[in-house]
């Protein structure tokens, strides 16, 4: 039981962590909770279905599995990056110097709009996510582990490592950190702040798209509400870790999912979601800054 709940928790944690990164990156730079971020993730899953449908009719899923896997991730990533950049342009940039409540309301509005839009276009019913990877399962310390779970974990960890490297080592990554610490000063050394913000939204959206496709593959089913629940969970994870803190979002995502998984396994599956938010409340009472604190390196503005 323990090993099984651990495996389940790690897989869900990878998904929470990928989505949480988007919240935390945007918050770090704009001090904005992008409530429409969960919807980007949901759209990623739907685009994945569309890609699989096209590949299926072309027969590509039979002839070239590797290429199909690449495309089923790559196309939603590109699509969602465009969505994220557009979202920022349309809903947030015009309000950048407005009172803090205005972009928040705009974010909630965009979230509702995108949910309803997908409902109208795709229908309100659950949609099946075609099965692409037929990977066998094996037993490890008494837990059943399948190939898809390993694939999800490895891909998520790889992306997180790549993101850390990007932020720490590249010129654009350093510009992102500088912009998060002092936006005006970043512009005074020649950083195009609007571009950095667009890149930040693009990166968050790409990670959300990957998470969406992963979840589609994992559960085999998608609907227009998944963004709301996963978004709230990932947001909770980001706050748990310390909003604005990239490492905190990783940790928060895995921690929340593991706690949920053990709670569901040992106590009650019914109150799993309630438990997640209880954890948040308790952490915020004792550590209002989150586990790692919001100012762990990326978040602070002077």
């Amino acid at each position, binding site marked *: 039981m323990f090993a099984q709940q651990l495996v389940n928790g790690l897989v869900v944690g990878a998904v929470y962590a990928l989505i949480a990164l988007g919240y935390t990156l945007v918050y770090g730079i704009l001090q904005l909770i992008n409530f429409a971020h969960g919807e980007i993730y949901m759209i990623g899953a739907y685009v994945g279905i569309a890609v699989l449908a096209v590949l299926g009719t072309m027969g590509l899923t039979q002839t070239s599995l590797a290429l199909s896997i690449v495309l089923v991730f790559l196309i939603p990533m590109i699509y969602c990056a465009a969505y994220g950049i557009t979202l920022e342009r349309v809903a947030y940039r015009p309000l950048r110097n407005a009172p803090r409540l205005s972009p928040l309301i705009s974010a909630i509005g965009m979230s509702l709009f995108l949910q309803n839009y997908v409902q109208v276009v795709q229908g309100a019913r659950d949609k099946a996510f075609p099965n692409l990877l037929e990977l066998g399962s094996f037993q490890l310390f008494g837990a059943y582990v399948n190939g898809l779970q390993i694939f999800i974990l490895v891909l998520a960890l790889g992306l997180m490592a790549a993101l850390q490297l990007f932020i720490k080592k590249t010129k654009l990554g350093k510009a992102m*950190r500088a912009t998060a610490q002092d936006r005006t000063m970043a*512009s005074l*050394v020649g*950083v195009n702040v609007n571009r950095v913000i667009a890149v930040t939204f693009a990166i968050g959206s790409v990670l959300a798209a990957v998470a969406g496709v992963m979840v589609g593959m994992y559960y085999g089913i998608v609907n227009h509400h998944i963004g709301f629940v996963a978004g709230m969970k990932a947001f909770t994870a980001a706050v748990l870790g310390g909003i604005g803190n990239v490492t905190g979002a990783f940790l928060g995502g895995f921690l929340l999912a593991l706690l949920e998984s053990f709670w569901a396994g040992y106590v009650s599956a019914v109150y799993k979601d309630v438990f997640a938010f209880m954890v948040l409340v308790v952490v915020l009472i004792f550590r209002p800054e989150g586990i790692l604190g919001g100012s762990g*390196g990326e978040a602070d503005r002077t």
Partner: protein
Amino acid sequence: MLELRDVHFYYGQIHALQGVSLEVRSGQVVCLIGSNGAGKSSTLMAISGVNAVSRGEILLEGEAIHAQEPDDIVRRGICQVPEGRRIFPHLTVLENLEMGAFLRNDAGGVKDDLDYVCSLFPVLHERRGQRGGTLSGGEQQMLAIARALMSKPRLLLLDEPSLGLAPRIIETIFGVLARIRDEGTGIFLVEQNAHLALNFSDWAYVMETGRIIMGDEPAVLRDSPAVREAYLGE
């Protein structure tokens, strides 16, 4: 090289710049003095493209630059060391300096300039791995100036570089500024320490409530009764 003509700027309802006109000739040190709230920092932020000018013009070598973004202004060779230094607190000293060279693509030249600014301020070399936010005030001011120099500016805008620093540190910093000036970089200096500013400059302006009220050679201003009373404390 730089000219402001009748520049107006508002913070919401507050009319912070009420028709500022001034000129910085190339290779010169020009200073701007004035009391708290006169609009000195607002003027520098208008030049840097952070404050969007509502009326008037800012010209660089005769070309209008007041509608450009801050990064374009840096690209054109104007770099500002803002009030309060504004070091990136969680970046290391070295990363702060690299950010100064953000727009440059000549890796070799950037490397040489790193060595150069570290020779101007050896303490920065010693502290290169330390986070910017942990430096002392004087060290931060040196880092802020060095960071601006990493962009290879033609014109350096300095906002109160002496603020809150010990006389010995001020001497070091102005020694370096003199060297930069001698190497041909223009300097536009905002200072509340009028003695210091007038001694260092080739031309001086006095600002009051969003307007330039005087502009002359430092020697002339130093003899003006109004300036002596208001800014030199005599």
